[in-house]
């Protein structure tokens, strides 16, 4: 019997994510999001997701909120710093009560993921005592530790159906390697039932075996997606597309204020019309893409 390849096309990867699931998105703020998959979920208007934007998220989560995919959100931040201090759709949905927010900071999410990955009921943290977090997030329980009798917060484990990450490369067996920082991707992989990873390149098994210590984890599903994190960065390869993020932020903001024209155009051009990731890259254009990988 032959060893099986785990490479699939993007439609097959998207079929693994259904309404109502809990998904964890990799990367960190404006780096390394599996945008080919995330745009696909937005395009399919998947409903009722619990989304973990680990550990702080950017506008990839805002896009899912804006397309009505999110019921419950777990993230310490949703925004794009200078391009958008707060994600516009996130802000509006939080203010109108359209989404539930599991209030936390980055360390509290990390603690939740640690508990889940380790198969223990909770992980303790100090931060959050005396703040509004335990009152806003009833899952966080104050307790006295049995060793020193100190007050702590217990952060419970949470089942996660699918982790969705973006990395530099993988072989056809799902061995994933990064050029730069993997952020918390290895942890969300360990916490989730299954992992879908989009990669810039498929490499040979020999190239992976040249440095097995570089392998961050073994994903169950690999999708080849060059420039797959655009408009976010991929460490060592390309930086954030500031103009695109600004275009998104402006269109989304205007839409939350009642003027939907720029947002409708953005949706049509970048989410709904392109039939796949490469068609999306054609919309972005080679001149733009190649301007992002110079030092």
């Amino acid at each position, binding site marked *: 019997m032959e060893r099986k390849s785990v490479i699939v096309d993007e439609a097959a990867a998207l079929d693994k994510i259904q309404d109502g699931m809990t998904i964890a998105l990799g990367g960190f703020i404006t780096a390394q999001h599996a945008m080919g998959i995330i745009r696909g979920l937005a395009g399919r208007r998947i409903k009722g997701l619990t989304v973990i934007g680990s550990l702080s998220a950017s506008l990839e989560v805002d896009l899912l909120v804006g397309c009505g995919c999110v019921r419950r959100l777990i993230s310490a931040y949703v925004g794009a710093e200078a391009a958008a201090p707060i994600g516009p759709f996130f802000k509006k949905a939080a203010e109108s009560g359209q989404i539930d927010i599991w209030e936390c900071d980055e360390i509290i999410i990390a603690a939740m*993921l640690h508990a889940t990955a380790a198969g223990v009921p909770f992980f303790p943290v100090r931060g959050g005592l005396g703040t509004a977090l335990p009152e806003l997030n009833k899952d966080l329980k104050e307790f006295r530790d049995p060793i020193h009798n100190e007050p702590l917060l217990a952060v419970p484990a949470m089942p996660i159906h699918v982790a969705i990450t973006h990395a530099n490369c993988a072989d056809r067996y799902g061995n994933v390697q990064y050029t*730069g*920082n993997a952020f918390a991707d290895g942890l969300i992989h360990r916490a989730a039932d299954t992992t879908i990873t989009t990669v810039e390149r498929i490499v040979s098994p020999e190239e992976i075996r040249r440095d097995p210590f570089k392998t961050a984890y073994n994903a169950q599903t690999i999708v080849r997606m060059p420039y797959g994190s655009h408009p976010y960065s991929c460490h060592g390869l390309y930086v954030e597309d500031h103009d695109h993020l600004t275009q998104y932020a402006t269109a989304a903001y205007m839409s939350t204020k009642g003027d939907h024209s720029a947002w409708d155009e953005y949706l049509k051009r970048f989410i709904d019309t392109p039939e796949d990731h490469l068609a999306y890259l054609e919309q972005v254009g080679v001149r733009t893409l190649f301007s992002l990988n110079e030092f």
Partner: protein
Amino acid sequence: MTDYSVKELMACWLARDLVDGEFAAVGANFPIPRAAVLLAHFTHGPNMTVGMGAFKVCLDNVDQVMTLKYFTDFRPMRWAESASYFPLDLFGFHKMDVFYVSGIQIDAYGNTNLIGIAGEGGQYKFRGPGSIGTTTLAAVARRYYIVAEHHTPRLFVEKCSKISALGFGDGTPGLRKKLCLPGGGPKYCITPLCVFDFHPETSRMRVHSLHPGVSPEQVVADTGFEVEIPAKVMETKPPTDVELSVLRNRVDPEGALRT
């Protein structure tokens, strides 16, 4: 003496309070603390550990340091000696000496709010961006500074609607100790008008120094809580020519602090 902007004054003042050898991080969209950490590193902190984005960098012999739009920009890699190991470095936060926080509200006891402002019926009138790492850092970092880019009664309130980073809570003496929080809490709060410190007994903010040309009445008028102004209040020491030269030539050549 050279003219300076109030943001330059704030950066220079914060830089002087950093000690060589300390571990401090430079965020992306927070220009005043960024400039303070880099200025301290260049003027008197060659042994500081400088966290820049996802890297720990050493800037010996670096002439100019670019301003980053995004925390995750990987280009500081050229100066990096190591990378942050996520998310375990987040759990290493308790070894951080210094950090800087802001908020959509800052209250009289140094609590800050990045979560949101409650409106009617349990919903938010204004939803903030989220707590980022501040909840834990405020609990565990050895000391921290609250940095406000504006000084208005809407920002400086008696009580935060939601506390995301705990300062001194409701002022109960020994509260942080009772909660077994290892960090010392906020040391100073700096604004475009003044520097606040915290009264050792009440833990309330009081004026520590007024920036040149600012009157006590202006601080009272622009602060949303009752603020104590000691009878003899100092003037914030303005930037020196040396500080301004390092700041403008090496730290902030783009002039982010002058806009």
